[in-house]
């Protein structure tokens, strides 16, 4: 019965669907328009000297800076360095956090011992550790990656561990009735149940990794988008700063979308639909 209902859509329902679709398209158009209008106003204000484009920059100057960077062969080098650092930091931070969370789940004693320390570390602004990393590891990409890991790893541990310990005890009881060993409880119940938690930690970590990498590049100041921003600020070249910020925004958005896509992909392969 429900099948026939699905096949023959009534006129009212078709009308309803059409309205929903129109609304959705309108929202999309307005979203794009908002950015476009903002850029146009920015450009006009710059040309009419309402704002001082030496300190605010303006879209046409940004476009020119972008073209220059590209011609000098610098554009993709800096983008690549920053993205590579972020991806590495993000993957290592998530992996390390998840592994440590598994260890904490395994040993409740250890978890209880470390819990207050983790909570304190979590509230510590990890960026304060930057200079220490540079002294210990040296002013290079490694320090920057460690910075990115430092920013994301503690949150990951706490989030994922919480996901682990909030797994329905009856589900664990069920596998115990089959005589499950601890590692079986982990692989058959705890990890799959906490999977959504791990994914949401992943989403948070993308943003945190960017923060870690950019701050790291500020401090190390050798290459990457963070370096361009700091350098541009120091030589008072706001065009360069604005250009880098915009590239950064686009790159971060793309990476976030990548994680969302990955989530969908994994969800679809492990759950139907």
């Amino acid at each position, binding site marked *: 019965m429900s099948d026939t209902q699905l096949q023959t859509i009534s006129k009212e329902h078709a009308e309803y669907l059409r309205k929903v679709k129109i609304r959705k398209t309108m929202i999309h158009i307005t979203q794009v328009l908002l950015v476009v209008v903002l850029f146009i106003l920015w450009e006009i204000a710059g040309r009419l000297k309402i704002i001082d484009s030496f300190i605010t920059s303006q879209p046409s100057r940004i476009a020119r800076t972008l073209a220059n960077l590209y011609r000098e062969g610098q554009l993709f080098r800096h983008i690549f360095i920053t993205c590579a650092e972020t991806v590495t930091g993000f993957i290592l931070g998530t992996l390390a956090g998840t592994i440590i969370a598994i260890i904490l789940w395994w040993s409740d004693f250890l978890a209880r011992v470390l819990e207050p320390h983790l909570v304190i570390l979590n509230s510590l602004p990890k960026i304060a550790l930057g200079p220490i990393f540079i002294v210990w590891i040296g002013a290079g990409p490694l320090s920057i990656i460690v910075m990115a890991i430092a920013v994301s790893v503690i949150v990951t541990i706490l989030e994922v561990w919480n996901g682990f310990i909030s797994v329905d005890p009856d589900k664990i009881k069920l596998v115990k*009735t089959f005589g499950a060993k601890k590692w*079986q409880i982990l692989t058959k119940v705890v990890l799959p149940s906490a999977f959504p938690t791990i994914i949401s930690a992943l989403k948070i970590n993308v943003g945190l990794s960017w923060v870690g990498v950019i701050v790291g590049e500020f401090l190390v100041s050798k290459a990457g988008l963070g370096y361009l921003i700091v350098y541009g600020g120091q030589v008072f070249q706001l065009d360069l700063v604005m250009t880098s910020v915009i590239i950064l925004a686009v790159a971060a958005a793309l990476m976030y979308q990548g994680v969302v896509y990955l989530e969908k992909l994994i969800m679809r392969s492990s759950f139907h639909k």
Partner: protein
Amino acid sequence: MKYQSLNGEITALENINLHVKKGEFISIVGPSGCGKSTLLSLIAGLILPTSGKILLNGKMVTGTSNEVGYMLQRDHLFDWRNILGNALLGLEIRNSLNEESKQYVVELLKTYGLYEFKDKYPNQLSGGMRQRVALIRTLATKPDILLLDEAFSALDYQTRLAVSEDIYSIIKKEKKTAILVTHDIAESISMADRVVVLSRRPGTIKNIYEIKLSCENRTPLSCRDAPEFRYYFNKIWKELDVHV
């Protein structure tokens, strides 16, 4: 059986002496918190008694064994496994998944009308079907004794009647011994050969009723019409001594 906690000691069960015959269906009723689940956990070997002992086929229970199958209140099918995957869970954990045991599960799924759903996921099945899958998951490891802890109480009333009818016939067909914990007096009488009434905590056996109903081809539903049914119901109701 005593539980230890910082707030003190809880004696959950005391002086329990119960023999269950092979192939028998036992129901256990008692006020909530009297130790019914504890009793099943003890039989399953999930916890060990602080005093006394439990014998299974003459052997003392020292941990979980594949002679016992446990069904919990909710089906706890795993969303991330399909129906076949869920049914094979116990075999996987016991490391006894092979062609033969898999074939056995497939046969069970076929016999109980779930084979065509084997690639579906739990959220695509009705509550009654899910409970049937849970039973097959339990049967897959070929236990002699089935423990059912309020196994139907998460279902709505109609489904519950149908499912208990269903599960009862499967248990009888597979010739399993069963111990059912329930707080539904009618359910306990309708399914059991004997009903054990437990007292308030610390749980002790208050009484055991041998259920003799005059009805042919007994099923949980049909025997509710038996003239003796009400008699047992009233007896057990009084015995439970419920105050609101």
